[in-house]
């Protein structure tokens, strides 16, 4: 649960020891500019690394390509739930305002027979505002909650939070974290590679 500065004299030994104990989460490299972290991410991807992520204070243009992030399915979930909301609205209004069909023991739920200017009791155009609002409501709630769930948030703890330096990931620095689970991972080689690509600091992070 600590972060080990690999620049420190005994840092690498400590990191190797915890790698042997399989308690190493990975290494996290700090960058101070967008081009630097982009170039490092591209370089690691070219070396075959897959289990890595960039943590940044804002979305970086071009990072999806550099990390090989695939388009999210979120829009399809939102579309589905939007259509569900639309269907719910149509059903709710037509069912509750229905007076023309007999549903046996459900008939006690039939709507008012209010005669308003001779308009039909069931008038779909009059329900459009409610149907529309329910469509938006379902879709918008889904966009938010599905996004957080797909991101596995809320997630109160993350190994990277043990690093003091990582607190700048939401402020003004960019962190490229490579997980120890990656087949190409080696504490020495990976951190050396990161340093070659302009990392300001490299830390090993324990689980």
């Amino acid at each position, binding site marked *: 649960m600590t972060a080990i500065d690999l620049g420190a004299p005994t840092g690498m030994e400590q990191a190797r020891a915890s790698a042997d104990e399989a308690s190493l989460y990975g290494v996290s490299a700090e960058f101070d500019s967008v*081009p630097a972290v982009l170039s490092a991410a591209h370089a690691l991807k070219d070396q075959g690394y897959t289990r890595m992520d960039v943590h940044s204070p804002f979305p970086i243009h071009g990072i999806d390509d550099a990390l090989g992030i695939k388009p999210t399915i979120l829009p399809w979930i939102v579309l589905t739930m939007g259509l569900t909301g639309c269907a719910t609205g149509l059903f709710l209004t037509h069912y509750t305002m229905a007076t023309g069909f007999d549903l046996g023991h459900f008939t006690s739920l039939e709507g008012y027979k209010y005669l308003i200017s001779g308009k039909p009791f069931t008038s779909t155009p009059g329900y459009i505002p409610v149907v529309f609002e329910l469509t938006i409501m379902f879709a918008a709630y889904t966009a938010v909650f599905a996004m957080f769930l797909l991101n596995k948030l809320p997630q109160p703890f993350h190994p990277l939070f043990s690093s003091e330096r990582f607190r700048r990931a939401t402020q003004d620095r960019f962190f490229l974290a490579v997980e120890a689970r990656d087949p190409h991972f080696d504490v020495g080689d990976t951190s050396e590679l990161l340093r070659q690509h302009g990392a300001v600091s490299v830390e090993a992070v324990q689980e």
Partner: protein
Amino acid sequence: MAVIDFKQPVVIPSKEIDNTGDDPRARAELITGDHDLTSVTDAVGRVAEQKPSWLWWACFALASAGAAAFFAQIAYLFLTGTGIWGNNQPVAWGFPIINFVFWVGIGHAGTLISAILFLFRQNWRTSINRFAEAMTIFAVVCAGIFPAIHVGRPWLAYWLFPYPNQMAMWPQFRSPLLWDVFAVSTYASVSLLFWYTGMVPDLATLRDRAKGKIARFAYGVASLGWNGSSRHWHRFEKAYLLLAALCTPLVLSVHSVVSFDFAIAQLPGWHTTIFPPYFVAGAIYGGFAMVITLAVPAREWFGLKEIITMRHIQNCAKVMLGTGMIVMYAYSVEFFVAWYSGHHYEQFVFANRPAGNYKFGFWLMVFCNCIGPQILWFRWARNSLLAIMFAAMCVNVGMWFERYVITVTSLSRDFLPGSWDQFEMTIVDATMFACSFGLFFTLFLLFLKFLPVIALSEVKTCMPQAHGYGADTHEGEHADDHAGGGVSHPDASGAPDPPESPPQENSS
């Protein structure tokens, strides 16, 4: 960052960099001052971290006293009944509905800034969208209270919602008043989600900057463990885009539905097809006036002048002027249609407005909405905060009186002279409306103190540093470590080499 050389020198009443020019050849700077990612984070973080000034405490004391008085009056209302208001027959709507339309309208500017301007890629919105959205939420809170306490027996207000019940009764879905329940509740909850979602990364920033244990824990819970992962950002941006796309028709629908409350009725002066666009334009007009009213003092007091620049204020003023013209046009068309319709009840109502019992309200509305804000056509006025505040205050007053004129003049003078009656407001009417501002400002001041007032992560995406420029100051420190010295990967399609001069982020 270079100072842009505009052809025409303009006078700015402060020492800021002038980014207010209209020269299309040079893009104006979005943020003035020599800001980098660190200093922008500090400038915004400080607002939430430092101890509030005496001015904040003074405002908060006043506002929370108002809010307390508001709730006390609601208690008085519940114990006594709606007779404490001036509402009568035929003016059954009176102040509560006027105030409802006024407050819900103010909210619209926030959603316009956060959703519609987002879809139009107006990057200047990033400096003001957060607090404009906050304004939306708090205005809708105030708006929601008025119809709820107006229903007579507010403890039964849940009857408005469709739920299976022992009475075997459903709400009347053909009624615009029920449409309003759906529109406003959807609007309130979706605006809240939109606001919160956008705030999560910035709450994480405050969490990571927090010194105290309580602050760290509270921001930690609120930020859901956001860690800035690129995979998270990818979905976040998609969700934000979808929300903006969903909120855009939503915000237009909400005030349209509010206008249906009037337009579906057959009352002269209400029963017109122009109401939905007229109400939406009026809502945005009034909302931008409130944005300016809040932004001008807030940027002054919290040292955010370099982030909410003069250009932002001017853009708001221009949107206000534009929507004001639509509102003026709607006023004229109403009169034209009343004359052209040949419908003498309609003609009477429109003759009665400027010349009848409520002509004071009508002419105040005309002055405040149609004449006062016209000073914004002049460059000197758009460069003067005082003139902009004058125009905004005009609109704040004028838009309330617009709803007063629409509601009261039509209801009090309908078809039959036998059913006419005069509406007289009571002291409670006036104080209740005034105290609703107390609730609004209490919530707003708490927001200014505890939450990120600027959408930090969005502002950062609009800074040169987000595109690989402006990092040159760090170049010397790590020159030896850099394999390519910050030069992008040859395969990186989206990241060009840093050019000689930093580009200016667009704004309009």
